[in-house]
């Protein structure tokens, strides 16, 4: 059996992917993408966890041998910023889409374009 943390992270990824595959509204699809990214970040952090250890800030009694793996946390920091950047850009594309077609429903957009 896999750990409950992995289970939660994978579930978030799958929920996000479901929204991307099934939803018709562009905003909902983008929310799905964000959920997926959160799931991935959660997975990355939980891979770096080591049972019984604390955060990798080496002061107040935390030595090199009782801190968790710092690398995944550093990677997640980068991944979050990248996610923010993608979302911002996607939202501006959605603004253009709404200005041109007056709707955010992907099926209607396809029909309008002909």
């Amino acid at each position: 059996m896999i750990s409950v943390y992995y289970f939660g992270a994978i579930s978030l990824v799958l929920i996000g992917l479901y929204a991307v595959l099934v939803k018709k509204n562009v905003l909902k699809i983008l929310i799905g993408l964000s959920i997926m990214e959160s799931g991935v970040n959660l997975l990355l952090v939980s891979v770096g966890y080591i049972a019984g250890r604390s955060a990798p800030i080496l002061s107040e009694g935390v030595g090199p041998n009782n801190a968790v793996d710092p690398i995944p946390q550093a990677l997640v920091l980068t991944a979050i910023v990248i996610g923010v950047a993608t979302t911002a850009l996607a939202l501006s594309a959605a603004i253009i889409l709404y200005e041109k077609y007056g709707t955010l429903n992907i099926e209607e957009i396809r029909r309008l374009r002909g």
Partner: protein
Amino acid sequence: MNGQYASLLIALPLISAFFVPLIKGAGEKAVKGYLVLITTLQTAVAAWVFQTVYTTGKPIIVMAGAWKPPVGIDLYLGHFAALFVLIVAAVSFMTAVFSYVADIKPPADKYVMLSLLLMLGATGMIATGDIFNLFVFMEITSITAYALTAYNKTGEAAEASLKYMILGGIGSSFFLIGLTLIYGSLGTLNMAQIAQLAGSMNPTVAQVGLSLIIFGLAVEAELFPLNAWAPDAYQAAPYAVAVMFSAFVVKAGLYAMVRLLYLMQTVKSWHSVLSLLIAMAVLTVVVAEFAALRQRDVKRMIAYSSISQVGLIAFALALGTRAGVDAGVFHMINHAIVKALLFLGVGYVGVKLGGTSIEDFRGLGRRMPLTAFTLTIGSLAAVGIPLFNIFWSKIRILVAGIEAGYTWGVALILGASVVEAVYYIRFIHAMWFTGEGERIGEGISMSLILLFLAALVIVIGVYPQYAWSLAQKAGNDIFNVGQYIKNVPLMPLTGVGA
């Protein structure tokens, strides 16, 4: 000069892009001229790196912050990276000249920044020696590509860009999950060390991780079924951007995919991943060729043709043999030249005549004879006619495919090539044998670039030896993983994972 100065390949475009807001008051022409200047400088740096690597025969390892790998991030400028960084810079220079001549929708300063950063992203993807850094550069490339796809601000452009973003977002999430699995079982992110330790990996973890990474990169590398965004994006993007997409963005994705694939070749489940990639590649070729046949818009048609060629490259690289990798790299070089020529020529026609549907190309032989001539050379080369460059690489790929035992793949690709010949001949026919028109003046700088590329096509076609030797060295860089590991000065570490 010290090899560490090769980090200018990253630093120069970056600092120049940050500088643009300060000079945007100087006007559109000045900013575009600045783009030409910076890409020229970048080409000079890349040429220096290329020259150093190919004369000494040793790769340049750039260590950021003086940390030895795997503690710090290294840039690995081997034979492959040196060659393709030069191609990236040279193509960027050509598109910069094109943008200078053509009208760019405002705001031109933002366009210049994004072009520089696209060049930076592709350079970094090709040069980096760290798998997470590869992810960061991949995101730089793809986020810039999203913005440039939507740059024309039409409804179609925004739609194409959104499609690209959604697929790209799924792809990057998959890539990151794959990376998590590999990091989780090896405890390192350095590519040389991953290659060193790959043999000890749990086969299931390796298989899942590697397949996820391949899926993630397949969005950038335009492989079926994750290439649905590509034709729309090529069509909606500004002309110069389409050139960059086809000439180096897709190459960077392909390279990253193949590099990671070969680094992990000691993994026990490796061959199942190879067959997955071969199936994707062959499907890409077949689907794209048949889609190209139906197009009325020349830019879109060439986009489909480009996708099918990319599938062919992926096929060659996924064969898992030395001959296949060499041929694939050779085809990458040839494809970059030919597609740069075709997209630049078509873009130039689009700028001059205001459209790129097949009707606009009628009588082009009389209206813009030089452009039509170079486009003809490009089309003939793309079909794979002897004495043009693509013939040599295509034949090598097919031979390598048969040697590796994938006769069915080769047969399907040959069938698709016939389809390709049909639509290119239709295109050439439309240019020379139909329609009438007044002669239109062709600018000197664009004519020179088009003629240079056409000359390159023919020179490589007649004397393929030099280009082939470059391709062999670059292919060896990818295929010979033992040499790669030896070249990276890994710091010995003691830990639980080792």
